[in-house]
């Protein structure tokens, strides 16, 4: 943590604007604004703003705009010069009274979608402006599942906060618990037993595989290729059942706790995961071949929903969104943390930037995760899996872990009684949602589900 003055803050903003560094997060608390930046390492800047005002980062670096709108809604911090002053997470007493961007042009029509969508998905509003079938603009409105996480964290016990962190985005519960626990351990200066760290890796890769399988099937299904969804659904279900057998919960919620993991992995558990790896390897390559050989499917995914490398870089797009558009970043390797810094794996990167590239990145990552699982099971260190953690007094910690969607930032500070004073978790979706608006431009309305699913941003993780 570095407490900075306004001049330093503005210099950091300039560096962000010209692309010398990458924005990792921006969040508030009463009277103070925080910014995390990726330079050679992670730099955390704190700016006191007793009068509740600070120079806007979004004024020169667009990726910060929604973050600043959110911090303003939550803590009343006013970013001076913010180009978009509409509320973001706070919808107010009349939720339908939101000033969408004005649209002016002959023959344009608008299609409002959501917040309640046709499928079983999270709520959000999409306002399409179309010229015939072609989308000329998508404007998102999010915040429908805003649950007040940052406020709930304030004053929470460590145990309450850990459970809450694991329920910010259910599909990434392992990654959230991993990031939260790592930030706690950084704040307290403790290291969990080695076996616990490796078991965290096992859970994290199972979660990644389950989600990538689900997405692979769902993306193909959105191109009316439902046999892929059926096959991937079976494989995904096998992963979740394996997780339940090994860790007592299908999504592995609360499996990672500050100080280690909640339960050890038995010898039967190890054998079960090995069998699972074999089962996926027996079936998955055929599905990939089917994807590769189905021209009608490729016709929908290749060239659709293009995201430029420049935008991916400027927004610091994490995960498959960034890596399909040339951004070679993976917190497991680029930042490096246990157990990954002791394992061999590739970080697949493509430059095509379309739906197909985001599918291919997922496919390659499933293969990498299977290999990581094998390596971890082969070398799982013996010993304890949990260290008693007793927060004694003030302390601050930060962690960046790679969730299936991309890098997930966790920051927290303890108060003098060992409770959580402030905690903020930033989902990769914050920087991916705005890019979806860019990726859909010029595509037909009917391809939106495909583009959307290829991003698969979290609503809950974003809305906090």
């Amino acid at each position: 943590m570095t407490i900075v003055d306004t001049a330093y803050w503005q210099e950091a903003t300039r560096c962000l604007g010209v692309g010398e560094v990458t924005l990792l997060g921006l969040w508030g608390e009463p009277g103070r604004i925080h910014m995390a930046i990726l330079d050679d390492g992670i730099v955390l800047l704190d700016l006191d703003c007793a009068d509740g005002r600070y120079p806007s980062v979004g004024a020169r670096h667009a990726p910060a705009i929604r973050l600043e709108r959110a911090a303003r809604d939550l803590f009343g911090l006013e970013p001076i010069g913010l180009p978009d002053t509409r509320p973001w997470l706070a919808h107010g007493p009349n939720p339908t009274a939101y000033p969408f961007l004005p649209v002016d042009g002959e023959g344009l029509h608008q299609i409002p979608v959501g917040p309640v969508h046709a499928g079983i998905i999270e709520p959000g509003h999409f306002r399409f402006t179309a010229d015939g079938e072609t989308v000329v603009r998508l404007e998102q409105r999010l915040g429908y599942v805003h649950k007040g996480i940052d406020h709930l964290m304030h004053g929470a016990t460590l145990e309450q906060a850990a459970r809450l962190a694991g329920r910010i985005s259910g599909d990434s519960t392992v990654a959230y618990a991993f990031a939260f626990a790592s930030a706690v351990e950084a704040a307290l200066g403790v290291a969990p037993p080695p076996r616990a760290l490796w078991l965290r890796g096992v859970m994290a890769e199972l979660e990644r595989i389950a989600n990538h399988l689900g997405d692979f099937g769902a993306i193909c299904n959105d191109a009316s290729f439902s046999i892929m969804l059926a096959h991937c659904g079976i494989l995904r279900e096998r992963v979740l059942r394996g997780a339940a057998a090994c860790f007592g919960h299908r999504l592995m919620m609360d499996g990672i706790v500050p100080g280690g993991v909640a339960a050890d992995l038995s010898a039967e558990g190890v054998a079960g995961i090995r069998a699972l790896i074999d089962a996926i390897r027996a079936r998955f390559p055929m599905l990939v071949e089917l994807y590769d050989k189905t021209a009608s499917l490729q016709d929908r995914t290749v060239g659709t929903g293009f995201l430029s490398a420049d935008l991916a870089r400027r927004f610091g797009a994490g995960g498959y969104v960034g890596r399909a558009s040339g951004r070679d970043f993976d917190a497991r390797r680029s930042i490096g943390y246990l157990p990954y810094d002791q394992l061999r794996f590739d970080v697949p990167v493509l430059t095509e930037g379309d739906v197909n590239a985001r599918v291919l990145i997922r496919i390659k990552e499933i293969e990498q995760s299977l290999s990581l699982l094998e390596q971890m099971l082969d070398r799982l260190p013996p010993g304890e899996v949990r260290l008693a953690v007793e927060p004694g007094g003030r302390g601050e910690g930060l962690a960046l872990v790679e969730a299936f969607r991309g890098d997930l930032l966790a920051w927290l500070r303890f108060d003098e009684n060992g409770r959580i004073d402030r905690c903020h978790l930033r989902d990769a979706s914050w920087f991916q949602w705005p890019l979806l608006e860019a990726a859909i431009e010029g595509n037909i309305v009917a391809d939106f589900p495909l583009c959307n699913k290829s991003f698969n941003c979290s609503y809950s993780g974003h809305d906090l």
Partner: protein
Amino acid sequence: MLRTLLEGLRSPVTEKVDRGGDPELAALAAKLDRAAQRRLGRSLAIREVDAGSCNGCELEIHALNNAFYDLERFGLRFVASPRHADVLMVTGPVTRNMREGLERTWRATPDPKWVVAVGDCAAGCGVFAGSPACIGRVADVVPVNLIIRGCPPTPMQLLQGLLALLSAR
């Protein structure tokens, strides 16, 4: 290759479902009157509404459609509009920002209709209890007929809950 792929689907993975379920669920279902049962018959059209969930419940509701649980074999299916629905399956602690959306969806669902609150958050706000951004339980916003607990409930628990709705006496 086609043969191999079809093989994967042919070998049956579909689960048998024990309709016994848990006693709490059975008791709740029993409260649904005979008239409801007669009207629902053996088929239910379900509209899912996420009113603030972390998306964990949605993942497991999704799983109901996979080959293991194969929801449609029981005459249960998810529909795209509340206008087509008999049942609203609602998840999450209802957020301030989704209250209107939930109420409108409920109003858009034709009578007779039933509401199933899915998950610990929908049942009692879960870990989000006390948040100024949340209204409360689903029952605080729309009338609830059945509660399926769990964080999230497993697909089997969901299936048993829905079948309880069909077999209420």
